[in-house]
């Protein structure tokens, strides 16, 4: 799925500058627990989460994340945005819930990452 389609489906806003809207999002995973995320990602993955602390960005130092979608209207702090820019990590935010966001993306053909 292209980032552009994802942004439209989730009525989302891209937070990080210079995002390429025709970028391909390969697969996704959704969780609010960091250990779950670490256990479940074995390939480049888009993460959907409601956690907005710097450890979410730190995760991308350990595993291969293509970007993070913050759900439930969570606003990432400037510190998080700066950390993401430094790592060339895409950040997106949506007002939708984790369940609704995941359902919409899954229905539109964005597959689950391999676990």
């Amino acid at each position, binding site marked *: 799925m292209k980032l552009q389609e994802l942004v439209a489906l989730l009525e989302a806003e891209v937070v990080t500058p210079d995002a390429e809207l025709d970028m391909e999002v390969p697969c996704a995973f959704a969780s*609010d*627990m*960091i*250990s*779950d995320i*670490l*256990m479940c990602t*074995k390939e480049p993955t888009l993460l959907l*989460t409601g*956690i907005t*602390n*710097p*450890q*979410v960005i*730190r995760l991308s*130092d*350990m*595993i*291969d994340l293509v970007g993070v979608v913050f759900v439930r209207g969570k606003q990432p702090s400037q510190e998080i945005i700066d950390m993401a820019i430094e790592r060339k990590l895409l950040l997106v935010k949506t007002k939708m819930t984790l369940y609704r966001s995941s359902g919409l993306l899954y229905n539109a053909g964005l597959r689950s990452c391999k676990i």
Partner: protein
Amino acid sequence: MAEYWHIVPEFDSRLQEFRNSNPEADVVLEFEIAEKDFVNSGKGSAEVKNLLKRLGVDPDTLRRIAVASYEAEINVTAHSKGGKMVSSIYDEMIHIAFRDKGPGIGDIDQAMVPGFSTADDLVREMGFGAGLGLPNIKKNSDIMHIVSERGSSTLLEIFIFYS
């Protein structure tokens, strides 16, 4: 004192070999880990991963090392009064030791059960406390060793061989 070993069978002999030859590490990296410092926790693991990447360790092994090390680093941050992480890098493997200042693990077998957690509200708000830390370390390590005593310190060691 309680002790826990997890050894993937094929690595049992390699551990013996390693102990007998007692080789000197090519590189040793040390990081202090402060209690409840969720801003800096994870930096040590990221730095170890970056160094191993430069040394040409394959991506799958890198991910296993990074995940196991990060979980352990977070454990020291979340559950202890602080401690130290010492990563010793050898030709064929990495050994990472986490020593904290207590308060120790009451029941290691219970702590190994997926979903069991003693995390407080602060830790849970940060997205931790799933009760998967130690199981995740076990899953990603070739050898895992814990020595702990209630009211005292904990030592957690991880051995991962490069494939």
